[in-house]
Structure formats: C-alpha cells, structure tokens
C-alpha cells in the first residue's frame, strides 16, 4: 500500500494537458471522475474542509459552547505560543513528564515489541516443520477481531494484581506475594501492562509478515546455503531484505498509530493519567482539552502539532526507505 507513496509524487496535471485530450479521452475522464465522486465529495466535506477549519480554529479563542453567532477572538499565534510552553506537553521532569514525552517513551517500548513479536510468530508459523499451519494462523490472528473494549476488560482481569492469572502464575513459579507487579496501578509496570495488552492485537501484522515470508523464493535460500550461510545469516541476508516492504508497511502504520495512542489509557485508567501521571498520553490530553475543557482553539493547535510531528517522522522514515527497503523487480533505488 505504501509503495505507491514512496515511488514519488506524480506531477500536478496542467490545464493544457486536459485541453490536449481527445474527446474520447475526455469522455473517459468524465466517467472516471463520476465514479470517484463519492470519495471526492466525502474527502472535501469530511477531510479537506475540517483540515482548513481546524487550522483556522487554531488561531482563535474558541469554545464549543459559543453560540453560532458569537464572534470568536482572533488571537494569532497565541495558542501555539501557549502550547510551546505548556508543561503538560513538554515537561521533562521525571515525576510529571509531559504528555508528548510520555507518548514517545511508550512508543519506544511498544514499537519494537509490535514488530518483533508478530515477525517471530510469522517465522515460527512459516516453519516447514510445523503441522496444522492454517489452524495456528487463524488462532493467533483471532484475538485481533475481539472488540477492543472487551479485550481491555479481559486483560484488566488477567493483570489484576490479586486475582489475575498473570500474577497467580508468577506466584506459582515462586515469586513472593509482596514482589509481584501491581501492573496498571504501578508507574513502573503500567507500560509493560499496556504492551502485554497490545500483544493480543499482533494478528494483523503477523499475517502480513507471514504472507511476505511465503513470497520469498526458495531458490534464494538454496543459493545462500550453497554459499555456506547459517540460519541467522540467511534471515538477515535473504529473508529480511525480501520482506523489507512489509516491515516498512508495519513500522509506518505502527508509528502513526502509536502517536495517536490513547484509547487504552482512556478505558483502563479511565483517562485520569493514573498512576502518577504516567498515562497522560498526548492524545489523551488532546481529547480532554477538547471534550472536557471544550477548548477548541487550543485543541486544534495541538492536533496540528501532532499532525506535523507524524508527517515529519513519516517523511524521515520514507527517506530512510531507500537504504533498507527493497522492492523486488525494481532493483534498489
């Protein structure tokens, strides 16, 4: 899906190119645009206009309770200035880390897990020695389709410090009762708890990796074996380059998702930021700014900051792609 994007942006067609079209071609264009029209209209109404609106909002002092006729105050870059000094976003002090750093810190833990676990599972499920592949494939994918809220309550129970099976297992394995983690209620354990919870959703990435692995031609492994490569070398020299497009796809979508992470803390810790403010994710703060404090102007500025960050990170990622993402049939470019 992302290769379309990394192959460069096509040029904006000029009016001249339209005039040059034959009448048959014009007919084709008319039909094409007709079929695209549901999306063109939807994109304009639900994406383009809101984008412009939120940009405008971000320069206003606006609250949702304002009547439709209230003239909002234009405050220029004030929202942005406030935002750049907002300790709830930027604070670097350990106790009350800013929400942006919280998001990044959690992402740095969750991203590798969210790539390595499904990749490892896919490698296992791709093993020629495994019997009942399609059964395992379905079963490991299955939790992905469980309603998000139900899965959270399920794991909330599993991670309950007193009665959850995780701590019961730890105690069964000999960990003393006093030292079992307090999971979602402990500053040091809440991120691992969220990561464990997220492992249930690896099914999608796993299937994509698996399909990528199945697409690696077996001759390549034969050739590598003849050259004396061991399994580890085969993985890094053959498998990884061949599946790098799907790795790239999963990494990109994970990053975009992780920057917007907030539904889990919203449900598990009720959006309170507990324990000790460790779950005040950026998007949770944004959610509260808009829905609780009803500050639309400030919320819009925050949303644009997030958009800018995501854009920057994805652009950097796309920039690095040429060094490690290998699209078969096109050579390295």
């Amino acid at each position, binding site marked *: 899906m992302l290769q*379309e*994007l990394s192959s460069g942006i096509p040029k*904006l067609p000029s009016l001249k190119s339209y005039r040059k079209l034959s009448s048959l071609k014009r007919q*084709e*264009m008319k039909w*094409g645009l007709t*079929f*695209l029209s*549901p*999306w*063109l*209209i*939807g*994109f304009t109404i*639900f*994406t383009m206009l*809101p*984008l412009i609106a*939120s940009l405008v*909002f971000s320069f206003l002092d606006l609250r949702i309770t304002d009547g439709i006729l209230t003239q909002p105050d234009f405050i220029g870059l004030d929202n942005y200035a406030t935002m750049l000094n907002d300790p709830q976003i930027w604070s670097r002090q350990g106790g009350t880390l800013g929400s942006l750093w919280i998001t990044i810190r959690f992402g740095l833990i969750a991203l590798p897990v969210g790539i390595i676990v499904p990749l490892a*599972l896919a490698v296992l*499920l791709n093993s020629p*020695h*495994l019997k009942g592949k399609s059964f*395992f494939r*379905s*079963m490991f*994918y*299955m*939790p992905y*389709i*469980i*309603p*998000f*809220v*139900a899965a959270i*309550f*399920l*794991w909330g*129970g*599993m991670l*309950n410090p007193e009665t959850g099976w995780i701590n019961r297992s730890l105690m069964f394995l000999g960990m003393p009762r006093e030292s079992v983690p307090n999971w979602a209620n402990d500053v040091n354990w809440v991120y691992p708890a969220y990561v464990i919870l997220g492992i249930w959703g690896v099914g999608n990435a796993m*299937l*994509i990796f698996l*399909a*990528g692995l199945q*697409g690696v031609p077996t001759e390549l492994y034969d050739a590598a074996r003849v050259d004396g490569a061991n399994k580890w070398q085969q993985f890094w020299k053959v498998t990884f380059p061949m599946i790098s497009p799907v790795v790239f*796809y*999963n990494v990109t979508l994970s990053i*975009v998702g992780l920057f*917007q992470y907030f*539904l889990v803390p919203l*449900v598990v810790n*009720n959006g309170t930021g507990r324990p000790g403010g460790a779950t005040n994710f950026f998007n949770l703060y944004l959610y509260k700014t808009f*829905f609780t404090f009803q500050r639309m102007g400030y*919320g819009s500025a925050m*949303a644009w900051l*997030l*958009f800018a960050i*995501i854009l920057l990170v994805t652009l950097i990622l796309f920039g690095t792609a040429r060094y490690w993402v290998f699209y078969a049939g096109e050579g390295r470019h």
Partner: protein
Amino acid sequence: MNSRKRRRELINTGKSGLVTLITLALLFIFLSPFAFMVFTSLKSQSQITSVGSPIWPAESATFELNGEELEQYTVPMNTCVGSESDTSERSLAIVDKGLRESVFIDPSDLERGEFACSVSWRALDRPWQVAPAWSNYSEVWETIEIPKVMWNTFFYAITTLVGTLISCTLVAYGFARFQFPGRDLLFIVLISTIFLPAFVTVIPTYTFFQKIGWVGTWLPLIVPHFFANAYNVFLLRQYFMTMPRALDEAAMIDGAGPLRVLWSVIIPQSYPVLLAVTVFHIVFAWNDFFGPLIYLSTNRDAQPISVVLRTFNGVYGSSPQLIQAGSLMALLAPLLLFVFAQRFFVQGIVITGVEK
C-alpha cells in the same frame, strides 16, 4: 541407504513434533485469557470476595441429608473417635458445630453414622465444589438490555456496510479502470489520508455536527461511510486491477456502458474481495468505540455494545464476574463471524499489506 533415509524421516518427524508442540504451548498461553474470562464470568459474588478461592467457578461444598444442607469441612481424621490411626484428611459434613468438639458424618461412608472429632469447626477449611453461576449471564442480559444494545450495534454495522460497499466499489472502479490526468495524484491523496491524525478532523467535524443537531444521533457515524475510505478502496482497486480487461472490452463492444460493465462484469468476479471488505467492515463497526463514544454519549438508548460495556464497567467494577460475562457476550458475534469466514479475513490482509 534405506536406513539412512528412515533415520532422516525420523529426525524430521521429531523436529515436526517439537516445533508443533512449542507452537501449541505458545498458543495455549496466548489464548488463556479466554479461559480466564469464561471461568471468571461463572463465579458467584461470594466466591469473588473470598480470599483463597479456586480459579474455577466453585462454591463451598455442602452435603444434603434428609432435605437439610450440611456444610462440609476438611477434617484431619486422626482427631475423630474411632479413626485415631488414620492420618488422612477427609471432607466431612458437619452436623453439630462446636469449638472443642464437632459432630460429623462422612458423605462417602454414611453407614458409619454420626461421630465426633475433637476439632473446632472455626479452625477448619471448607473444600470447594464446581458450581457455575449461570445467573450472571441473565443478570448482565437484563441490566444492560442486551437485545436493545445488540440491535443498535447490528444496525450500525449493517447500514454502514451498505454505504461502504457501494461507495468503495464505485471509487475503486474509477481508480482501476479509467485513465485521466491527475488520477494517480488523487490516488496518492487517498492513501495519504491514513496518516492524518483523527483529531485534526474530529474537532471541526464534531463541532459542525453539534451545531446542526446531529450529536446524539446515529447520523454522524453512518453518513461518512457512504463516502468511501482509503483501506477498502485500496483493497478493491488492487483486486480489480488483477482482472483481465478483455471481458470489459467485450462487454463494451456489445454496447455496455461503464456502469453496466461494473455491474455485470466486474462485480460478479469480485465476490472474494467484496466478502473480505464485508467481514472487515462488520468487525470494525461492531468493535468501534471512539465514534459512538463521542457522538452517542448523550443518548443512552442508541449506544452500541462497546460504549455500554464501558459504562457498565464503571458501575459494576466490584463485580468482575459480570464484567467478564458482558465482555464475553460482546465478543461472541465477531468471533462467530471469524470462525465462519476466516478465509476472507486472511485474503484481505494479504492484499493490503503485501501487494504494492
């Protein structure tokens, strides 16, 4: 020669067994939360609150004698009259409770009759017996009005499914089969929308819907689905592009217009991908939480299962058995859909993730 071959086969069988066994063990751990959910959902409130109760649904054991419920206790037999040399412990039903001496009968040996043991009944543990509390389910069913909530969820899933299928098919057909300047740029714009953080558009959209009085109704959730989305358009376009144009052209020579070609040539060949879109969409809609949360929080009668479940959790937090029973009811529908339509899920993911 033959023995070497057999040896290799043996090694391979061994490897297969080992790999399969390891995978099975992993799967067992991976899916164990389901067992936790089922077990917990069948526990009684009294079991939940009693420390040291077993992980399976149980109640303190009782024994019925002549219409009377007698509590059972675990008694060291060497304290009892007539079995001083018996070092075992047994589960006995208590007839008369005493602090120095209690009177028991042995449910497995009724002929022995009543006998005294010199133990305080307070110092004894009670054994557990399996006792699923099925009533938890009916309690949840009534408390959160499952039929109404399920209908809401189903209604949301089906109406938006119709919208998605129609709009995405049209748009994907436009992208797959018509050539015109700017088309590829538009396609890139479409794909780029997946990078857009939700809040950039949610804030103005929510405000707009509030001003026109749609907040608290289903409209803001349903209407946008009639205008196509990146994932499904991509999925359908990829599939359409793999279909040979020869059939399209033959139909066109016979005088069929573009709509006719879509309806009689493209769609009949696309059932697998249309079903993939269908199952993904139903699961998406069934599980959707954020949309209904923000647009339906003021209208309790319209809320789907995900939002209701969260509210329920807030109220019944001290009854985890009810929360688990509710979660189980919420996941039953997508689970069943998955069991019957696995193939289409797998197919759809492979097209979006692997194909360029």
